[in-house]
């Protein structure tokens, strides 16, 4: 299933597919270590427009709600 980062729930695992945004957004996310085809896990999801805490390559990164909406992710379908 393809969705965006801010829609995921606590503990969800996903793989980043693409970053839909301008140059600045791409640069910001890449600096935080988010690149296409990276596996991620949601540590705390963004409640009512709050930031999302994402686990990526052993680091925890907080991403603003607006920024998270730009991150397209693929969640493996549950068997």
């Amino acid at each position, binding site marked *: 299933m393809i969705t965006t980062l801010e829609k995921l729930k606590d503990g969800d695992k996903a793989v980043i597919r693409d*970053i839909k945004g301008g*140059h600045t957004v791409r*640069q910001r996310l*890449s*600096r*935080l*270590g988010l690149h296409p085809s990276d596996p991620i896990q949601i540590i705390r999801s963004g*409640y009512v427009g709050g930031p999302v805490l994402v686990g990526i390559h*052993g*680091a925890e990164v907080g991403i603003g709600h607006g920024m998270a909406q730009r991150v397209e992710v693929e969640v493996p379908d549950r068997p």
Partner: protein
Amino acid sequence: MRIALLGQPNCGKSALFNAVAGYKTAVSNFPGTTMEYVSSRVCLQGESFELVDLPGIYSLSTPEKEELLTRDYLLKKKPDLVVNIVDSSVLSRSLELTLELLELGLPLVVSLNMIDEARRKGIEIDVEHLSEDLGVPVVPTISIRGEGVPELFQKAVAAAKERRIGKTFFFSMDVERTVSHLSSLLGKDTADKLGVPTRMLAIKLLEEDEEFHAAVERASPVVIREVERLRGDLAECHGRPSDMVISSERHSLAMNLFEHVAKVKRRTEKSLRDQVDRYLMHPFLGYIILGLMLVTFFGFVFSLGKHLEAPLLGWFEALALYLSSWMEKTSVILALLTGLIQGFSGGIGIVLPVSA
């Protein structure tokens, strides 16, 4: 000799700076808080050098103004050596900056900081292997406790004298071909004027770096048209914008490097900190705990103030009386001292009842 400390935000640069320079730069727990650079003259093991603490940056290409300060320092002031401080607990991400610094072509030493934190997370890093791969000295450190710091600077001074520059990491073939084509177009003169190696300038232009783009556009508009064409080609081949192509390349180089030198043991048990975090950062419970903590804290201060106020004021009065009995009534010092005491007790007299 000038040595610059550089690393991603919150990797322990200022702690390292303090461990060596011996006075307190404000160390804060929030990334991106060192807003200007601090420098200090340091003597270590018979060597004297100037140590500069630069604001933390995630990458040399950045949309943030504060981070450009750091880049400008590296390009224009050219330190004799850069100590790249790396947060070992997030090694793979940190290595991306290390790779960029290698592109910069300044002598480099890597400090694997917070190595204890990495071990706690189950990451074992083969230091010698990493040093071999990067072609620069690598020293594990724990900067808040000063561990490994003397060795780090010993190696730093030696590397600065040797002018030891690390290895060049190459991207995948088609990207590399574009980079070298652009490098030859740019030529050494343009790059020299901007204070960067030609290869780095080519990479930065492909990354759509605004500052370099503008500078090259002024110097030779013809080249910029070619840059734009090459960017378009890259984007078309890879199905994503050229800056993303480069950052993905660097990312995969860093990941390969990480997998080559580090072993990660899976940890199953949750650490105490994770447990505490679960409650403190809970969207509802967190606020309740915050409220409770504030009430307890202020309650403590208020009750302390209530008990302290009367004895303190009495004590100040007694002190003033004692002084006037002991010194001449007309002396300047007495007037000054009683003035001081009255001001002081007056101040406390105002603050304490408010908090009580």
